[in-house]
């Protein structure tokens, strides 16, 4: 073929594509003459406009000064073929270049095989039924994945307890370092500002009764029991949980996890447990750090805006905030850390092996992490209420 597929840079020399319909002589086929240069990025004749006023019949397509052509001519002929098939007539393209005929034959063959394998159209009820069954399967599969992952992690912890010398403790420290270093500044800033906001809100109310010094009580209790652990956990879920999911997801995309499995290495022991231990250990430390910064935030507002000396604020905080308050916050944060690590690793390990899959896993890790934090907090609130702590 010498006429097909011009370079776009040759476009300036082309003649416009044309198609002319000649009426059929008595008893014969009507003739469509195609000519000029047919290019995708240029105007081209439409089959439907060409035959708009014409009764269906057999059609013979012949070249008439046909120049360069590309898929646009093929598209024109496909429309012609469909038009003919609808009225049970034939489209004869034997006068066209051989390679164009080859392409038309390929399309005809593909149509035939697709029609043979095409399933019958489903009714609305059948579609709803299929959708429901599919949803049920997906839910069951997700539950199985999650339970299986939790079981694997539990067995992994048992293995660590039984053979601690076999575990890669260095990996835990590396992950702890990552948790600590990446989250430290943002946890400090957010916790300090939470302390500031709480102090401002409390001051507005308490100053009316001349009880501004009790700002320290309110800030201290709120921060150590709720806000400190909670804010630190939220930040860790957004940063560390997402990072875990992205790391493990990318390893899955690159078949690194498959390589570990084929080596007989337990992926849970090698990849998941170090991360779980790191978040579980680091979370209470981060919460403690957030508590200190939150109290300092309250102290800053009291000292600068409420004229309460820092020492008085500190003494008031010491009097009101007991070890039990601090401990209740730290116990919660321990569970928050476990939840964040589990969410990140679970989503990463079950990630679809594609770029989109990694994105979804990362988002899902953050959402799941935050959900777990809130649920855990609610459960602990209930337990502490019952225990009177």
């Amino acid at each position, binding site marked *: *073929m010498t006429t097909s*597929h011009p370079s*776009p*840079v040759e476009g300036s020399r082309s003649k416009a594509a044309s198609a002319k319909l000649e009426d059929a002589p008595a008893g014969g086929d009507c003739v469509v003459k195609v000519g000029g240069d047919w290019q995708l990025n240029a105007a081209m004749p439409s089959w439907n406009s060409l035959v708009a006023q014409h009764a269906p019949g057999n059609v013979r397509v012949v070249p008439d000064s046909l120049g360069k052509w590309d898929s646009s001519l*093929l598209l024109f002929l496909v429309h012609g073929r469909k038009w003919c098939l609808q009225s049970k007539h034939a489209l004869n393209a034997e006068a066209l270049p051989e390679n164009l005929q080859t392409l038309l034959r390929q399309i005809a063959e593909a149509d035939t095989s697709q029609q043979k394998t095409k399933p019958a159209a489903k009714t609305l009820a059948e579609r709803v039924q299929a959708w429901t069954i599919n949803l049920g399967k997906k839910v069951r599969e997700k539950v199985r994945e999650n339970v299986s992952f939790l079981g694997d992690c539990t067995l992994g912890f048992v293995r660590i307890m039984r053979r601690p010398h076999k575990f890669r403790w260095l990996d835990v420290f590396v992950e702890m370092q990552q948790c600590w270093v990446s989250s430290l500044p943002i946890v400090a800033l957010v916790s300090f500002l939470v302390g500031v906001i709480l102090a401002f809100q409390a001051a507005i109310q308490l100053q009316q009764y001349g009880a501004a010094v009790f700002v320290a009580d309110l800030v201290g209790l709120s921060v150590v029991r709720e806000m400190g652990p909670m804010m630190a956990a939220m930040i860790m879920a957004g940063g560390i949980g997402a990072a875990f999911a992205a790391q493990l997801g990318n390893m899955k995309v690159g078949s690194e996890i498959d390589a570990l499995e084929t080596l007989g290495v337990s992926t849970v022991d090698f990849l998941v447990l170090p991360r779980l231990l790191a978040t579980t250990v680091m979370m209470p430390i981060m919460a403690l750090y957030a508590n200190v910064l939150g109290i300092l935030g309250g102290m800053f507002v009291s000292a600068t805006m409420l004229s309460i000396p820092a020492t008085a604020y500190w003494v008031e905080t010491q009097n009101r905030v007991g070890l039990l308050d601090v401990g209740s916050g730290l116990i919660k944060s321990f569970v928050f850390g476990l939840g964040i690590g589990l969410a990140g690793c679970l989503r990463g390990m079950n990630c679809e*092996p*594609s*770029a*989109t899959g990694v994105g979804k896993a990362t988002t899902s890790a953050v959402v799941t992490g935050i959900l777990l934090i809130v649920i855990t907090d609610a459960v602990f609130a209930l337990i502490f209420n019952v225990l009177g702590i």
Partner: protein
Amino acid sequence: MDPNPTAPAIEVKHLACGYDESVVLQDVSFTVKPRELLFIIGGSGCGKSTLLRCLIGLLQPIRGDVAYFGQSFTGADSAQRREILKTFGVLYQNNALWSSMTLAENVSLPLEIHTSLSRADREEIVTLKLTEVGLAGSEDLYPSELSGGMKKRAALARALALDPAIVFFDEPSEGLDPITSREMDRLILQVRDVLGTTMVIVSHQLSSIFRLADRVLMFDRTAKGIIAEGKPDELAAHSEDSRVRDFLKRDDGPAPQPNPAEGGSKTHSS
């Protein structure tokens, strides 16, 4: 610059390219005729992929020029460059299919960007392209649902979406079993014969080289350029350079069929 229809499909003049301070190729010149099936071969690190990146505009050459149908690509302004980019399609080594899109969307995207076709016409062309590569009926599948061979076919369909005059292939048989690799070769030949596309293939797969190549260019790491060009069987039989003979006569391919009656090969001094 006016396009020249009689010019070679690709003309590379005194091209030097590399990364930072390291020059991988220096003073490389060659031309590719329309409808030619050219193989770029050579050992690892010889600059095959670097040359390909230069040819398709992903790497700016240090010196020299690449021209398509007589129009300079290296010196083109952004509007000319956009036009020239439509001249060629690329099939990447790892296929580079967009994983978040179905096959239909993968093939349709170039049409959406570069043409003003209606959605219905784009869908028809997508079906045509997938049919051409033997993937009719796979429009709604995602790349992750395909086998290695199907991914290659899908990537070829995307490369052919705009009916390019030239298609570049980076290791089209990489990771395929011999049977699928042969099917891919057959498809490449079919596309060339039916659509008249110029093909430039970077590969070191001997079976494909002997089966498909009209001509090969062999690159070498120490020479930093072309050390031989010609028909593969003639180079294997008659090249004066032992590196060329060793490469083309190694054990992992079929025995070459030398034909001393034919000329056309020459060996570059390195």
